[in-house]
């Protein structure tokens, strides 16, 4: 964690009000390029809302967002994905009626640009099959290539979602609780995968599994009641009395 100050993603005074209730208020966030940055906090702290704001699935009530120095505060979400800032969802987001292979291929297909060619055979997509298969293999899903995604177990859906996100080869990934509901062996595999993909990418992730957070992240921002409570390395943050207090109520260590 060097102080180069090369921030790939920056949010300033980010605020989201639902009616009178501020789910996120005045959050300043700066994610350094090439790091794994964790966003933690008790349930309802506003982590998912932050993700929705950063990827523009929600329009901020206030504040500004910069990606690679570019103001993306008013950009539509599909355009943000095209810039290389891609998110996953807390509730596993797969395409249930498409096979696992087709799920990954939908992401690879983006390399063609738009796919409005309705007159062409889908055989035009066969050239992505090899890469899609390699992506599935990476997350341990090769044998489920032909299985409809909706029929996969919860943990496998999460793994498929990660494979799909990775297939876009994004510069930065936002992962919302990627390991929630996974068996321990899957957690280890996905942890290792995240560490590996972070070698040439930036990752911002929400995760409740604190040992994973401790292992993986370079920097941690703690959110509580929509506001930044603390920020720093795991050692610093985990000793912060305010953080400990915020976590007592929800039983985290």
């Amino acid at each position: 964690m060097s102080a180069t100050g090369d921030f790939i993603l920056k949010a300033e005074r980010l605020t989201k009000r639902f009616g009178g209730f501020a789910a996120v208020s005045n959050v300043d966030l700066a994610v350094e390029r090439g790091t794994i940055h964790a966003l933690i906090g008790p349930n309802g702290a506003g982590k998912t809302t932050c993700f929705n704001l950063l990827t523009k699935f929600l329009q901020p009530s206030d504040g500004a967002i910069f990606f690679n120095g570019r103001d993306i505060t008013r950009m539509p979400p599909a355009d943000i994905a095209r810039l290389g800032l891609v998110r996953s969802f807390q509730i596993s987001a797969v395409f249930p009626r498409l096979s696992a292979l087709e799920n990954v291929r939908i992401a690879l297909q983006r390399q063609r640009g738009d796919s409005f060619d309705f007159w062409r055979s889908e055989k035009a997509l066969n050239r992505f099959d090899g890469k899609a298969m390699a992506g599935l293999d990476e997350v341990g899903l090769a044998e489920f290539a032909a299985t409809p995604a909706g029929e996969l177990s919860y943990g496998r859906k999460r793994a498929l979602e990660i494979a799909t996100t990775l297939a876009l080869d994004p510069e930065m990934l936002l992962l919302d609780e990627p390991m929630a509901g996974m068996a321990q062996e899957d957690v280890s595999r996905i942890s290792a995968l995240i560490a590996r993909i972070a070698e040439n990418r930036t990752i911002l992730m929400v995760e409740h599994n604190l040992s994973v957070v401790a292992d993986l992240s370079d920097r941690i921002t703690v959110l509580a009641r929509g506001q930044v409570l603390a920020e720093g390395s795991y050692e610093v943050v985990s000793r912060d009395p305010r953080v400990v207090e915020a976590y007592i109520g929800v039983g985290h260590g």
Partner: protein
Amino acid sequence: MTVANTETHPVTLPADLRISTPRHHVVIFAGLLGLLLVAPFVLYPVFLMKVLCFALFASALNLLLGYGGLLSFGHAAFFGSASYVAAHAAKVWGLTPELAILLGTGAGAVLGLGIGALAIRRQGIYFAMVTLAFAQMVFFFALQVPFTGGEDGIQAVPRGKLFGLVDLSNDLTLYFVVLLIVFGGLLLIYRIVHSPFGQVLKAIRDNEPRSVSLGYKVNRYKLAVFVMSATLAGLAGATKAIVFQLASLTDVYWTMSGEVVLMTLIGGMGTIFGPLVGAAVIVTMQNYFAGFGAWVTILQGIVFVVTVLLFREGIIGVIARWTKKAL
């Protein structure tokens, strides 16, 4: 080492995963064509042409509903408008039938672009309500303007001569022309569903936010499929006007929108062959039970309820599940 670009780790692809037109689809299409070529020598050509027109209409709706995940409750607007335009072009302007059908289809497309652009801004049931509302506007327009002939409709539309050469007054000749149009339409729908565009369409149907997060501008795809669906519904309506030599308020009435949804659901939405079966079932019922008057509607309702209760995926949907084959 990047993950997505892993070329160093070759993983072999099972042969059954490679995309290609499944052989059973080719067999079914070929068998269907064979059957339809023989059918007019066994059954009434006019009855068969009615089934064909509605099979195309239902397949057009299914493209939007079954593959785009968008329930339109106003497809009569496209079917009916195309029917009026084709009838007017053939009767008043004296155009040849292929030009009349082309103009009618174009009317469906233009109307689809207008209504679709406004409707796709809404989701789920609100989308259905917006399409219904616009279809009702089209209905009242058709009721008011003089060119539609009001309650009488446009009657005695000449079938004319195809390209000015082939006389279509003969039912059998017309049947083969209609078969060509409808079968061509069905193959086009099949291609759309199994194209790179179709893949994105199915992804949007399955999970719209996820498609957005992958960088797809979903509204453009939704509008595109809406226009395609409206155009094909228009082709069905225009062809129907030439076959029955009639365009009437029934074609733009909301019950027509409901009927085509019914056909699609009974046959199996999201299946290629379901809408054809659904159309055949409903048209046959209407024909054979015509003597029962208002009871036909009630019988249709009963068939619908029974279908939904017994097999929610529709007739072909259930067969597809049993045989574990995409139909």
